[in-house]
Structure formats: C-alpha cells, structure tokens
C-alpha cells in the first residue's frame, strides 16, 4: 500500500495529526499561551461555526454517495438563509418575532429548499443536465435572487436585525463540566446537528436504504437488477441534500445569526463550498464530515482566540483562514475515491 493510499484511507487521522502538529508547532514557536487558546468558549464557538457546514456536508455526501454531485449546496444555503429570515419576518407580521415563529421559519426554509432541489433533481437526473454547470448555476441564481428577494422585502440587500433561536439549558446535564456547556447549555441546533449526524451515519451504513444509496453511486446496474429504481433513490438523496442545505442556511440567518446579510457573496460566504470539502475530507462518512466541519469552524473562530491572547491580525487576513485550511486539506489529503457512477445520468435498460 502506497503512502497516498494509506493517507487516503486514514485521511482524518492524517489530517487531524497534521492539524495537531501545526497547532503544537505554532504554540511552541510563537510562544503562545496554549491554555488560553483551547478554552471551552473556543470549543463552543467552533461548534456553532461548524453547524451550518456540517449540516450541508451531510446532505451533500448523501447526494454524492448516490451518484449526483450537488455542487449547488452554496446556492441552496443562500436560499435557506433568505427564506428563513423572510418567513420569520412575514409570519410575525407587525408584532415581534417569537421563538415559535423562528422554528416555523426554519421549517419553511427546509421545505422551500427541498422544493427547489426537486427542480434541480429533475434537471440533473431526468434531463441529464451537466451536474457541475447546473450546480454553479444554482449558486449564481442564489447570488442574484437572494439579495433581490431581500431588496423586494426590506428595501436593501440585507434584512433588519432579527432575533435568533434561544439557547436551551437542560437542567442537570448542563452542570456537567465542559460537555454541559458545549451541548446542554447552548443553541438546540447544536444538539440537532449532532443527532442528525449520528442518524445519517446509521441510515447510510446500517440500513437497507443506506446500502441502496451506496449502490446507486457505486454500481447502479446491480441495484437496478435487484429491482430497485436507481433514479428514485437519487431523487430522494438530492432532495434531502437540498433540505439539509436549507436547514444549514436557516441556521446561519435565524438559528445563530441575526437575520439575512446579502452584501458581497452573501452571509453564506463560501460555507457551502467548504461543506463539500468537509465531506470529501471526512471520506463521505457523516461523522468524518462533522469532525472536518469542526476543524473549519475552529479556523473560522481562530481570530477571536488570537485576539484574546493578544495577537491582532487584520480581519481581512484572519477571515481567510478557513479558505487556506481548505486548500491545505485538499492538497494534502485531496485524493478521494469518488463513488464510481458520480456525474453520470443513469438510464435503465427496462424502458
């Protein structure tokens, strides 16, 4: 087994090892107070920043496992973020936005994005659209219609400041050291993300449907022979990926954020692309994808930690850490064994 093969199979171990090594090197070389960098607060912020990435990554890996590369995650996240903010604002009407409104708005965003992905799925599966180009188109459409929708509603590309989902304290469990604050005294969306991650792993690797998904991407002919409709499985996973991207976007705007921001490349700001790298890095394993998202989330939040220990870099530079991390990850452990039938439309013989 060559080094490359080994690295590919143990990508998380290798990548995590490299990250740890880099962290230790930085701490010793630059004489940083390591204890101040690794605080519970840092872990909490990283976890929050990782949520939207992880949610989109899990959706994306389901689609790709089944043979459809949903490169439009970023675009669907923009629609999710806008829809959630718009729904919360419209549902509440003149009165102030309640917690119930917010949860309903998140649901609306998930459903809306699922519906949008139905159109995307029909184009890529039935009409055999080029998956990469169609996915890029979704991003452009999001970049256009996201700020457009905001302008129609609010007269500017961003929404007014909106409330977000309250933290939930689970009595008893919240008293636990470290874990209590990370999981049981925080946004309920953190717990939801963890539950969805584990569920996604169980469904993919421990259920019959999960095997169908894998077969649709690896060997669609065999699945077809076994009497399962390949394209039906693919429709389901692509629509699921849209729903997850919608949830990810909603998490950004009304889950942990304070409304929709439509300036520049919108508040999604590349997280959908990072999500794709997260699941590649996690080798299409939902738990791996979650851990990779955590790494990117930590990079995103590094700026705050560096400030607390007295290192002040301009925001324009620290904001680039996640993107640089993505490049390093892709270059060092970029080789991924992509499911065999990704990108190819499947046409059954029986027609």
């Amino acid at each position, binding site marked *: 087994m060559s080094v490359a093969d080994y690295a590919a199979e143990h990508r998380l171990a290798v990548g995590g090892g490299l990250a740890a090594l880099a962290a230790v090197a930085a701490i010793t070389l630059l004489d940083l107070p390591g204890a101040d960098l690794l605080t519970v607060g840092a872990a909490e912020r990283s976890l929050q920043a990782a949520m939207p990435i992880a949610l989109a990554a899990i959706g994306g890996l389901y689609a790709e496992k089944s043979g459809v590369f949903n490169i439009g995650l970023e675009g669907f996240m923009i629609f999710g973020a806008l829809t959630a903010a718009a729904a919360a604002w419209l549902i509440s009407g003149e009165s102030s936005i309640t917690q119930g409104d917010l949860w309903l708005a998140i649901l609306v965003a998930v459903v809306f994005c699922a519906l949008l992905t139905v159109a995307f799925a029909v184009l890529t599966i039935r009409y055999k659209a080029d998956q990469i180009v169609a996915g890029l188109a*979704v991003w*452009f459409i999001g970049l256009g*219609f996201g700020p457009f929708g905001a302008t129609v509603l609010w007269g500017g590309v961003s929404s007014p400041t909106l409330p977000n989902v309250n933290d939930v304290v689970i009595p008893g469990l919240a008293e636990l050291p470290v874990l209590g604050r990370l999981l049981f005294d925080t946004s309920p969306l953190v717990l939801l993300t963890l539950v969805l991650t584990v569920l996604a792993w169980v469904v993919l690797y421990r259920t019959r449907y999960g095997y169908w998904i894998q077969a649709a991407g690896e060997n669609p002919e065999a699945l077809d022979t076994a009497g399962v409709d390949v394209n039906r499985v693919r429709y389901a996973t692509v629509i699921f990926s849209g729903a997850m991207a919608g949830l990810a976007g909603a998490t950004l705007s009304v889950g942990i954020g304070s409304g929709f921001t439509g300036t*520049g490349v919108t508040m999604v700001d590349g997280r959908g692309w990072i999500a*794709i790298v997260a699941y590649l890095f996690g080798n299409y394993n939902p738990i791996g994808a979650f851990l990779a998202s955590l790494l990117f989330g930590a990079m995103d939040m590094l700026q705050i930690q560096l400030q607390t220990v007295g290192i002040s870099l301009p925001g324009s530079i620290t904001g680039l850490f996640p993107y640089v991390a993505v490049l390093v990850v892709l270059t060092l452990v970029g080789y991924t064994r992509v499911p065999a039938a990704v990108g190819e439309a499947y046409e059954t013989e029986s027609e």
Partner: protein
Amino acid sequence: MLRASVLERFALAVVSTLLALLIGSVIVWATGYDAVEFVTSLLYGAVGNLSNVAFTLRQSTMLILTGVAVAVAFRAGVFNIGVQGQFVVGGFATALTILFLAPLLPGGPVGGVVLMVLGTITAIVAGGAYGALPGLMKAYADANEVITTIMLNFIASGVVYFLIDAYLRPSGTSAPNTESFPDYVDLPGFAFGSGSFSVIGLGVALATALGVYVVMARTSFGYDLVTSGYQESAAAYSGVDPKRTVVTTMTFSGMVAGVAGAMFAIMVLGYYSDPSTFPSFGFDAIAVSLLAANNPLGVIPAGLLFGGLDAGGQYIGFTLDVPSELVDGVIGLIVLFVAAPELFRMSARRFGLGGDDR
C-alpha cells in the same frame, strides 16, 4: 462537455436566454413591478444612447476577455472557476507596476504606452501564475479545481484588499484605494468620450479572442488541449501528458484573465481598489463561455449580449428601482438552461418540433 451541433448550440443559446428573460420578467411582474417597462428599460439601458452603448461595450470588453479565459479551461475539461481571482491578481500586478515605475520613467504619451505595456505583461505573468497554482494542485494532488479556484478567489480578494489598505492607501484617506495612475496612463475614449471605455480596450479583447482561437485550432498545444477535453484517455494514448496539460491549460487561462485585469485597472478604474467591490466578471464569464459552447470566437457575440444585459440591469437599478441583482439571477438561469440541452430536446420532440434531430 455539452456536445451538440453548431446550429443546435445556437438555438440552445437563444432559447435559454429568452426563457431566462421571460422568467425574469414574470418575477418582476409578480413582485409588483411593470414587466413591459422592465424589458424596454433593459433595452434602453443597453443601447439607448451613446453613453449607454459605451457602458455596454466596456462591460462586453471585460466579459469577452474573462469569457475567453473560461473557454480555454472548459474546452480542455478543466473547470476554472477562478478567473475572478486571476483577474483580480492580474489587475493588482498592473497597478503595482504602473504606480512603482511611473516616477522612474519619463511622463507623456511614450511613458504612458510603456507603462501600460509593462503593466499588461506583469498582469499576464501574475494571472498565469495564480492560475497555475490550482492547476498544479489538481495535477499532482488530485485537488478538485472547482473548489480550489473558488477558495483562491476569496483569498485573492482578501489579500489584495489587505495590501491596499495597509500599504498602498495614501495617508489621510479612508477608502481602500491606491493613488490614481498618472494622467498619461489611459486609453483614449475616441468618439465615445467615455472615461472608462476605449475602442482600444475592445480591440485588445477581440484580438485576444482571435489569438486564442488560432492557438486552439492551429497549434499542437491547442490540439492537445482540446483533445484532453474531449477524451482524456485518447489524449493520453496519443502521447499527451494529462498532468502537464492541466497545468498549462490553467496557466494559459489565467494569463488571459490577467489581460482582463490589466484592462480593468487601466481602462475602467485608473487606480486599484478593494476587489470585493469589483463586478463579478469572472463568474458571468462562465455563462458567457457556456453560451458560446466554449468557443473563443463564440465568446464575442455572447460577451456583447451579456455586456448589454449587465448595462441594462444596472440602468433598471437606477431608474426603475428594480434591484439590479435580478439580472444576476437571470444570468444564473441562463447557465442552468444551457447546462440542460436535453430539456429542450425532449420538449421540442413532445411538441413535434425538430423531432428528427436524433
């Protein structure tokens, strides 16, 4: 990618554009604006008077250059989504060259021409180098170029902003702009009398498109590049090194994007600024190139069309209060439809039109 006959490609481009505009009009109407006024204003904004035409041609110049950059890569089967970043880096190199060499060289028209030529050459080098980077990452580390180039776009924009803000901003100003280039570093406006459009710039764009077409159609490098796009295994069998082709393709594509950056710095801005405020030519260029079936000559009419759409979109933003982002969405829809030729083939068969194309 997206193979079809020339006539079919042309029909696809026209139908996709019309359908996207129709959907755009419906959205305009559904959100409470006047759809007819939207379309007529779009037209007026594009070609209604001389200064609107100048604006359209200025946007077209940029879209033809960036469109050719995209076409080079897509033709070879490499998804260079990083034209925006390569264009930003190229333009920055031009600005650095002009600002640092201007005090050393004599002023006047001769000095101006020398500075512009040198600035363009450094832009080509810088754009090519920034394009080579994801090419190397793809060839030797299997890193997906769609994602690396998008990340490099963010990084180019952030780093250039930082450098301008920290080192090139004249003291006492707050906007992240460099000093203006000397007066003599500018392309003449001629009949259009526009400060930001010159026929020479459009000429550079047309010459680049033609030059790249000749390279792709008439040289062995171009042949290798196009064969790799059609079938990598066949290209490899005939002795083409696929890894090297990826790197050279990305470098070539980045070089063309560098020309676009130079034109943007010299012709449009006359200084350099925060790249996040720049128009997203590098992304619209993807639509331009796809509409042109990734043919460098086809990029010319596609670039003119999109230049008009862009100019019209900004015009309606000012006059009708219809957010100009709408046009970005319409461009996205065009890309989506162009990606799905089957959609039109199937519906054409269903309605009994052109059913004999198979």
